[in-house]
């Protein structure tokens, strides 16, 4: 009962900050999007924070997050360029959008859009300058009526990334969205909001990464929406490497049109309590959706991945592979849903999730889930939980490789099944370096 009243108190805390936030918007509170913010906060007041009795939150206890009263992130002072540089991926320094505490930083960013109509900008600017695109796409896919974290984000969303690829344009260079939470001066909560629009026959590659600075805990509540039009292809990589006392909730909603392809590679390494809600909606024929995930957790980290692939129309293909390594007292949660709607015949949907438990006290709760309403389909899921293969370890040891190194070789092999799908070489290499170094610590 105590937890419940706590939920109510903290809910009111966030609601009470909406007024001050609204005032800080000055003139832009007249914009149509602000009306959505208002309905979102009203909806959030209805929904409140989910509790353990909610089936979708059965294994994730939010009370560590809810005992904090995080103030809304203020516009931060800028960061030194060299501080930022440590987080920039090799080869992406020229295609960089930097956000500090959820707000776009023009000084730190470095991006020159190619002339052919491609827009890579902050959402803040887009809200002012491109009302027609915003009205058409923003908040159209992420369901703030149902999800309280989406509602909370929508209510406080002011900034984030806006990426627009017009019809028939392939954006060659990947865009790097770099989010840095600077909690050295104090705690905060931020609501980054990203919108990706890929026009017909377009191609775009996006790398999102999340990092933190300072010792104070903070809360990042992110929502990314992606509208993928006919024949478009989106390559989306997200790397979450927050501070170990950070709270991170990430919601992705994609909406795919005919013949489109979406590749998502999602990597979680940081955060004290992390929850991802990843939903791919294949809403037209012949779409392909790929969802690959890797997470590693140590110490007292809690990483929860909820994924859903919604086959709304016939003849689509989806593939999901999710892998995790848990050490220390870490807790992993995986829930993977595949929906095949009544008319979505000839659907092929595959899902696989594997977890390695490396320590006595690590736990994993896994719930793969199929809900199928069409008969002419091929769907499967598999789930395994285990430890490193003793025979493989023995093989390596017998060739003179020390135990620890043999362990990390096998962990690396386990992870590389996911990393192999990262199409941007520099990102993959960078990530492999980080992971190798982390494995040594597990």
């Amino acid at each position, binding site marked *: 009962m105590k937890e419940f009243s706590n939920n109510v108190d903290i809910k009111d805390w966030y609601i009470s900050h909406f007024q001050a936030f609204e005032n800080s918007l000055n003139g832009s509170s007249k914009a149509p999007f602000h009306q959505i913010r208002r309905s979102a906060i009203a909806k959030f007041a209805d929904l409140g924070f989910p509790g353990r009795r909610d089936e979708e939150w059965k294994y994730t206890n939010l009370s560590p997050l809810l005992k904090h009263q995080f103030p809304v992130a203020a516009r931060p002072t800028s960061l030194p360029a060299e501080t930022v540089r440590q987080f920039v991926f090799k080869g992406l320094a020229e295609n960089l959008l930097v956000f500090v505490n959820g707000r776009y930083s023009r000084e730190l960013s470095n991006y020159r859009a190619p002339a052919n109509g491609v827009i890579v900008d902050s959402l803040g600017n887009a809200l002012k300058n491109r009302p027609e695109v915003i009205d058409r796409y923003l908040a159209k896919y992420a369901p703030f009526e149902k999800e309280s974290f989406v509602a909370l984000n929508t209510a406080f969303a002011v900034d984030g990334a806006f990426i627009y690829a017009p019809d028939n344009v392939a954006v060659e260079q990947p865009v790097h969205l770099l989010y840095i939470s600077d909690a050295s001066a104090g705690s905060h909560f931020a609501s980054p909001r990203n919108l990706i629009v890929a026009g017909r026959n377009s191609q775009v590659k996006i790398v999102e990464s999340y990092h933190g600075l300072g010792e104070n805990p903070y809360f990042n509540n992110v929502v990314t929406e992606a509208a993928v039009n006919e024949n478009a292809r989106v390559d989306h990589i997200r790397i979450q490497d927050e501070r170990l006392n950070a709270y991170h909730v990430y919601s992705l909603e994609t909406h795919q049109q005919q013949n489109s392809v979406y590749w998502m590679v999602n990597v979680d390494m940081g955060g004290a309590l992390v929850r991802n809600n990843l939903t791919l909606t294949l809403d037209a024929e012949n779409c392909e959706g790929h969802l690959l995930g890797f997470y590693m957790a140590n110490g007292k980290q809690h990483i929860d991945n909820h994924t859903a692939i919604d086959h709304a129309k016939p003849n689509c293909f989806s593939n999901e592979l999710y892998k995790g390594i848990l050490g220390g007292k870490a807790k992993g949660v995986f829930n993977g849903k595949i929906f095949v709607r009544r008319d979505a015949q000839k659907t092929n949907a595959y899902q696989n999730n594997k977890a390695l438990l490396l320590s006595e006290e690590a736990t994993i709760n896994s719930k793969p889930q199929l809900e199928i309403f069409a008969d002419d389909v091929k*769907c499967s899921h598999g789930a395994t939980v285990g430890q490193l293969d003793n025979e493989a370890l023995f093989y390596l040891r017998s060739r003179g490789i020390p135990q620890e190194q043999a362990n990390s070789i096998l962990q690396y092999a386990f992870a590389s099944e996911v990393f192999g799908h990262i199409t941007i070489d520099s990102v993959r290499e960078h990530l492999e370096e980080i992971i190798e170094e982390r494995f040594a610590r597990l």
Partner: protein
Amino acid sequence: MNKDQQSNDQQIIESRIKSEYKWGFTTDIETETVPSGLNEDIIRMISAKKNEPEWMLEWRLKAYRHWLKMAEPHWPNVHYDAIDYQDAYYYAAPKQEKRPESLDEVDPKLIETFNKLGISLEEQKLLAGVAVDAVMDSVSVATTFKDELRKLGIIFCSFSEAIREHPELVKKYIGFVVPPNDNFFAALNAAVFTDGSFCYIPKGVRCPMELSTYFRINAAKTGQFERTLIVAEEGAYVSYLEGCTAPMRDENQLHAAVVELVAHKNAQIKYSTVQNWYPGDEQGKGGIYNFVTKRGVCLEENSKISWTQVETGSAITWKYPSVILQGDNSIGEFYSVALTNNLQQADTGTKMIHVGKNTRSTIVSKGISAGRSNNSYRGLVKVHKGALNARNFSQCDSLLIGDKCGAHTFPYLEIQEKSAKVEHEATTSKIGEDQIFYCNQRGISTEDAIGLVVNGYCKEVFKELPMEFAVEAQKLLAISLEGSVG
């Protein structure tokens, strides 16, 4: 496949799916009931009718008072109108002057009923080597082969008789695995259960024949609440089979049973169910709500419990036969075929709770949905900390027949032990056109081809059933589903 052939297939399917429920007759026999409704007086009346000792009545009342405080759960993936617990009879028994001593004294109408169902209570069943406890509505009407079993020290009798004659055993084990406050329906059962089977296999005895209980609902507007309790002492072995049918009636009837299995050191219990309650008509009218709690505990080392179920009946099936693997090296198994047709709904699966070291469990579940039905597999594999080297393998397949049904899989894996190895696999598909084509090509009709494919699909489960029941199950499946590719 061309259009004509497809529509031809469609016709075959429709005709086969529509086959009738053959066990839907009623027996015209005088029945003794208590007034409808549920309160403490009714429970006292039931207890008095059964000449129960005081402790049993107290146990019932305690469960009832607990039940009053509980809410009916609504989390399963099934939908039904609210049940009015006051508008049902909780006790109905075929009128008998006294408990018959031998089959000659049993009302011939009852014998005839069971013969019609293919359950021969006559001694010639000896050839088949199956001892039967026949339960009609609320009471057991006859138990065969009691004396032969008694010679080996095996107790196999109705639950009421066990309460009277073996109170120490009943007292020790009733509610041992499924406590009366376990869940809403278990509590209801504990309050009003009327009969069921009791089976006790003493140390070192291997039960020489299959034990079987046949449940029959006959009276209208009654709920059936039976309890089955099987205890296998050290080194004992028993194979047990449960079957059930009910007449066709327009209203829904509730069946809320409890089954408890206790396996001591080195003991083995094999429990098979062929569930064929009336499933309701094509429009989903009538049928049995089968809300059952079944659970076994492998109490000591090297014990084994195996559940096999073939679920073809009931408007709604909702049950999870579970095994608590407490003893080291114990084994739990679950084999299931669940078929839903028309508007039937099933939410069934198992729970394997690994507590002891080196415990192993296997789950094989085959769901078949046809018509407008919904079939869900829901299962839990839990490995507690300290359950060293626990091992689980689960396989859940769903077969969809037609485009108006649904198949759902909800497996929960909760692993708190590093040395555990857990694997889960699930697939959903339809019967391949290529498989049908292959058979057609060799002169096998589409109808038979479907039968072949479905039987092949279920083979892993059928092979776990005692032989004669495997044959029965195959026939049952064929009738419930004849001809099915869309």
